């Protein structure tokens, strides 16, 4: 089970039309080489699941600029003007979702739950067209699970077996997305020996990780 592969090999798993999750929050904690590779190989028609659409020129924000994304599930597009432009032109479909709902939908996808029962969005446009449920007299929205073909993550330290350790606020969506995709590729700031991460401190267990690529310079 050799998981360490070249960026080129890792990119071969990503096909046009796929649904991809990208870890990160405004580009912090996002894989650089994998995103640049997608742009270089011009892999388009993608459905993107990410917290936001980042900034112009920053990480997965570039996927939008290069018009490689046909649809995005996200909570925020305000930091990348190109998202708004493509939304208005109809080039990109944007499913705006409250951030907490988005992370629970991804978690539900990974955890085998049938959906998420949430009060967030009740009384707003977010509830429109969605199934609702009343529990103990209170109304909730039922949001569907989200899954992806591929998750592209970034770890600070990844051991050769695939155990991942994240640093500071770069953790964010990464460990949740690690559970919700058919194939999980982690770009490692540093690849370390098995055992270098204390088993107590592993943040994404190796069983979720399929491919490791070396990040950094």
């Amino acid at each position: 089970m050799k998981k360490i592969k070249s960026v080129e090999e890792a990119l071969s798993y990503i096909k046009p039309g796929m649904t991809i999750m990208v870890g990160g929050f405004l580009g912090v904690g996002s894989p650089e080489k994998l995103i640049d590779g997608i742009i270089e190989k011009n892999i388009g028609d993608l459905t993107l699941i990410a917290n936001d659409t980042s900034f112009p020129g920053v990480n997965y924000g570039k996927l939008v600029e290069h018009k490689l994304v046909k649809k995005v599930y996200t909570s925020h597009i305000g930091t990348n003007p190109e998202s708004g432009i493509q939304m208005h032109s109809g080039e990109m479909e944007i499913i705006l979702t409250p951030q907490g709902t988005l992370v629970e939908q991804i978690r539900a996808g990974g955890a085998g739950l049938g959906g998420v029962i949430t009060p967030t969005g009740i009384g707003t446009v977010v509830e429109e067209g969605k199934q609702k449920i009343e529990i103990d007299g209170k109304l909730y929205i039922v949001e569907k699970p989200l899954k992806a073909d591929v998750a592209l993550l970034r770890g600070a330290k990844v051991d050769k077996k695939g155990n991942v350790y994240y640093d500071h606020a770069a953790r964010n969506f990464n460990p949740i997305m690690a559970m919700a995709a058919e194939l999980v590729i982690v770009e490692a700031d540093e690849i370390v020996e098995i055992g270098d991460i204390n088993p107590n401190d592993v943040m994404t267990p190796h069983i979720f990780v399929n491919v490791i690529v070396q990040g950094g310079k």
Partner: protein
Amino acid sequence: MNIKSIIANRVAKEFKDGNLVNLGIGLPTLVANYIPEDIEVTLQSENGFVGIGPAPEQGKEDPNLVNAGAQPVTINSGAAFFDSSISFSIIRGGHLDFTVLGALQVDEKGNLANWIIPGKMVPGMGGAMDLVTGAKKVIIAMTHTAKGNIKILKECTLPLTAKGRVNMIVTEMGVMEVTDKGLLLKEKNPTFTVEEIQAQTEAELIISEDLKDMEI
């Protein structure tokens, strides 16, 4: 004090020792500077930690240590990092004592609109809907009007962020509490008369019998 400082300073007075608070981007972020030194308030960053400290010295930024606006920050001693699912469990699970946000519009029923102007500006709700739905107390911190446009309404006209969840509105003109009967003006900036404040407010203000002066 300038307008923003008046607002931030007043909001900070709501906090009690041990409170957990989320401060939104922009004006609400300034509130951190006015938290009384004799109480301990923990600030949450929805991108995944508690214990936000002040901005770092130039050159000491850590690219992995930023707030929810991607600005470099530091952490206080005893801070803790977590993933987005825990971060939003904190937010949605009622663990925040206060969330402080700005508004495009807010109304006398406690409705808030702050994430979209259809056809014009669609930034998205980010964590705002979760924050307003989940926090124990929701404080709107904003200038009373925006370029002369009235923002405190009888009823919001923009798409809502959440329905009936706002508890308090703090502006440079005064402090209003959302009550069953409408907006109760509890404190006012002494440089304005009640009539001047009402003139800048669409919702009809109920004037507290115990109306106090705001510290400015």
